[in-house]
């Protein structure tokens, strides 16, 4: 193998021991001056993953920072009734190909999961890596209806909007979209407005920010006077974001800092934003745990209704009988409960037998805690 170049080419500079130690020392210098431990919410599940996988969580605690997980896991916040509607569809109708991202298929609901359900003859559930793949399937199977059950935040939404536009342009009549698309800023505002969670600042999701830019969070600093920093996903990236937040706390000057400047521009990705605005419109969406939030979801605009799966198949997207497992994923998503404090954690609920989506998704706080931390209650 040829030798790899340093800096951008390898990630070692963002993972090096001395850099991590220096950042942690700089953070504890700030918290010592503030003279109390800080609580910072990492909004994004991929940040939760970095914090656990690299063992930073306990080190940060020593440095005076307690990290609290937030709602940034689309698989986790999508209510069960979306899955149930898809399960009903593929079990009651023939020749449906329901496509979705991998994690979505394992979420347990009152009607089982997409993975365990037995579809009608000719129908199937297929995992895709990209929405584009679902569209390709529609082209390859004109005799079937291909539905893409797309869940995601702003990071994923432009890819889905692009695919919807391409489907409309190519005139494929057998492709539809079930949109479970969620917006991060309204969810953060809902968390702040509820006043339930006691935090000193946010680490904003880096790849959501790639799309929406820096200004999208300005209400947090201006209206709620809370510090925040956009951060990347290497260990040093996350610590740099945390250092920025603790410095803002110490100075008493909240702002929206960008500590992921190699990837995030202040204005975001204008082309992606324009595409979203062209295809989709905001509505009051329901989040698991957070409830209904104004303008927090995106759905196809009325002129693209031909692509709308809920309409084509008359799907019932309403809360039904909930699964009474005792799963407290909703509280975990709001930062009110640590996974280890859920009575089910590592007892009746584990990655092989998940009781809720937080133990299913690779960005779910419960799965991450189970995999990477010793977890006192884990046996």
């Amino acid at each position: 193998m040829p030798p790899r170049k340093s800096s951008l080419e390898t990630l070692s500079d963002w993972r090096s021991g001395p850099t991590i130690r220096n950042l942690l020392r700089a953070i504890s210098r700030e918290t010592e001056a503030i003279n109390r431990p800080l609580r910072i919410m990492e909004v994004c599940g991929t940040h939760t993953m970095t914090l656990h996988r690299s063992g930073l969580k306990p080190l940060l605690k020593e440095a005076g920072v307690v990290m609290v997980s937030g709602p940034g896991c689309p698989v986790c916040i999508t209510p069960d009734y979306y899955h149930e509607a898809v399960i009903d569809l593929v079990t009651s109708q023939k020749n449906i190909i329901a496509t979705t991202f991998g994690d979505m298929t394992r979420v347990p609901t009152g009607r089982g999961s997409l993975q365990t359900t037995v579809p009608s003859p000719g129908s199937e559930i297929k995992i895709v890596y990209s929405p584009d793949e679902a569209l390709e399937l529609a082209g390859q199977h004109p005799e079937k209806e291909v539905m893409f059950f797309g869940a995601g935040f702003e990071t994923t939404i432009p890819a889905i909007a692009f695919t919807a536009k391409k489907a409309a342009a190519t005139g494929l009549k057998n492709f539809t979209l079930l949109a479970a698309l969620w917006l991060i800023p309204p969810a953060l505002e809902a968390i702040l407005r509820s006043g339930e969670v006691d935090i000193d600042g946010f680490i904003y999701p880096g790849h959501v920010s790639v799309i929406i830019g820096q200004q999208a969070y300005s209400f947090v600093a201006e209206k709620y006077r809370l510090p925040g920093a956009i951060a990347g996903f290497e260990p040093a990236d996350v610590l740099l974001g945390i250092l920025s937040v603790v410095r803002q706390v110490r100075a008493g000057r909240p702002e929206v800092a960008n500590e992921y400047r190699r990837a995030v521009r202040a204005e975001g990705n204008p082309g992606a934003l324009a595409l979203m605005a062209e295809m989709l419109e905001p509505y009051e969406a329901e989040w698991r745990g957070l409830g209904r939030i104004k303008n927090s979801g995106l759905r196809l605009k009325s002129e693209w209704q031909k692509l709308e799966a809920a309409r084509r198949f008359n799907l019932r997207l309403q809360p039904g009988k909930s699964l009474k497992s005792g799963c407290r994923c909703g509280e975990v998503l709001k930062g009110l409960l640590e996974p280890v404090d859920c009575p089910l954690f590592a007892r009746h609920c584990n990655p092989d037998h998940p009781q809720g989506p937080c133990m299913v998704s690779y960005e779910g706080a419960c799965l991450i805690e189970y995999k990477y931390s010793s977890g006192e209650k884990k046996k």
Partner: protein
Amino acid sequence: MCLAVPGKVVSLQDDGTGQVDYMGTTVLANFSLLPGVKVGDWVIVHAGFAISRLDRAEARRTLRLFQELEKLNSAD
């Protein structure tokens, strides 16, 4: 799900797609959301779509900041 991986653009096709090299593994990506991508650019790819071009000068600036922290801490 917002996991997105940095890679280097190695080829471009007329249909707006191209190959991205992730440390030796080459995968097809769609560049429609990132106009003006060139071979040799570093991009972040999510769900098959490139969503951001990495800025080398900014990356170097951050790395320099790490070096300054080193000096700050050794002065303690």
